[in-house]
Each structure stands twice: as structure tokens, then as C-alpha cells.
């Protein structure tokens, strides 16, 4: 039960952050990416606030042996920069630049009921499942 409450609280905080920062709107994201146009640096301010808050929280968490729920902190274990990471980031960047939606804002914006967001999210889910299915097949 407690882990459900943690998930809900984190989702609410994250979603509120996307709305208040304006990043839930694809036009604002594209305005940041359009450095040769009418550039809007707002997204940099989102990152510049989010990263130090997160870093501070992670640092303080080191005083604890583990999270409130669950047996341990599960940090990613991979450290090597491999072809999958590079190709994945290139494909994601291309899709992000095409319309200005990354996964979080696109999902949060579903509740506005705009058809463009729904089309994007359905295609995104298909892309995710296609990747997982192809990697399951490769790995047996």
C-alpha cells in the first residue's frame, strides 16, 4: 500500500511540475529546441532547477540503508556507453524534435483529450512494445 502512495505522490508532483513549468505544451518545448528561431530558454530553467534538487535528494538518501519501501535503492548498474544507448538516444531525439512530445508530457496531456496527443501516445506505446518484443525474440 505504501508504495502505491509513493507512486501516486511522485506522479502528482511530476505532473504538476510539467504543467507549472509549461513543458506539458509541445509548442514550448519546440521553442526551446528552435535555437535559430524565436528561442525560448525556459526548458533550460526547468532542468537547472530539477537536476540540483534531485542531486541533493539523492545525496541525502545516501544516509539511509534503503528506501522506505522495498529492500534497497536500485540504481542503474550499467556504466558502458554502447550502441543501443547511442542509437536509442538518436531515435528518441529525432521523434522529440518532430513534434515536441517526450513521454511524460505526452502522457500527462492525454487528459486534455486532444486527438494529436492520443495519436502520438498510441504510436509511442506501439514503439515501446515493438522494441521489447524484438529484444525478447533476440534474447530467446
Amino acid at each position, binding site marked *: 500500500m505504501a508504495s502505491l502512495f509513493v507512486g501516486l505522490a511522485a506522479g502528482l508532483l511530476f505532473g504538476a511540475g510539467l*504543467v507549472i513549468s509549461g513543458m506539458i505544451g509541445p509548442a514550448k518545448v519546440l521553442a526551446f529546441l528552435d535555437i535559430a528561431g524565436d528561442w525560448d530558454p525556459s526548458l533550460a530553467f526547468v532542468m537547472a532547477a530539477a537536476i540540483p534538487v534531485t542531486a541533493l535528494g539523492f545525496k541525502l538518501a545516501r544516509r539511509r540503508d534503503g528506501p522506505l519501501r522495498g529492500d534497497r535503492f536500485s540504481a*542503474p548498474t550499467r556504466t558502458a556507453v554502447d550502441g543501443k544507448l547511442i542509437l536509442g538516444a538518436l531515435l528518441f531525439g529525432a521523434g522529440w524534435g518532430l513534434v515536441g512530445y517526450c513521454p511524460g508530457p505526452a502522457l500527462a496531456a492525454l487528459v486534455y483529450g486532444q486527438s494529436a496527443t492520443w495519436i502520438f501516445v498510441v504510436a509511442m506505446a506501439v514503439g515501446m512494445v515493438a522494441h521489447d518484443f524484438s529484444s525478447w525474440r533476440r534474447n530467446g
Partner: protein
Amino acid sequence: MDGFTPASSAMGGALIGAAAVALWLGVGRIMGISGIVGGILASMAGGEKHDLGWRAAFLVGLLAAPILVDTVGGIVEPAPSDAPALVLIAAGLLVGFGTRLGAGCTSGHGVCGLARASKRSVVATSLFMTTAVAVVFITRHVLGA
């Protein structure tokens, strides 16, 4: 630059950071949206189910947040993308496949990964940012779309 919102964007960014810290302290997991959604989809397809609870709860919170903030704060909903359906589909497929292959998106690599000073996340974030900037440059200033 008429849309520049440094104060509200920094405030929203701080909330995003607080969300990442809450998830880390609470369940010990990195807040990566592509991982959370991909995990839910994989569970539905018969994969591991042990993280399904908090992931589904996170998604509920994420979907409830815009309604809550708009109700309390009276924030006007943003305009949706005006891209044609085919472009939306292509972009969605690229974002879905790419974030799973690269093991992260703007939240997992861009916020949490950079906060952890992860080399993989620094590389991934630099690459997806640069690629997205290049795509916007081409579509807006070369093709003039």
C-alpha cells in the same frame, strides 16, 4: 522570446526534482517515464509484475495532476501539436522505440541521470538534445515547414 517563463519553469523544475526524490526515497527507483510506462506495458504483455503497483499509481498521479493544477491554479491548457497525423505517428514510434532502446528519456537520463552524474546519461542527453535541435532546425528553417 515572448513565451519566456523563467520563474514558473524553475518552480516546475523543482517539483519535478521533488518527484524524483520522492520516488527514490520511497521505493528506491529512478524516475524514468519511459521505464515506468514500458514496464506497465511489459507487465500487461505477460512480463514481470512486481513493480506494477507503484508504476500504475505514478501514472494515475501523472494523469490527475493537470486536472488538479488547472482547477486550483486556473492554468489554461496548452495547444496540442499541429503536426499531421502521419508525423505524429512517426514521432511516437521513434520516441517509444528509442527511449526503450536507449533505456531512458528526458526524465530518466535528462534529470535523474544527470543528477547522478551518470556517464551514460550525459551521453544520451547530449545526443537526444542535439538530434532534436537538428531536426527542428531542418523542419523549420531548411524545409520551411
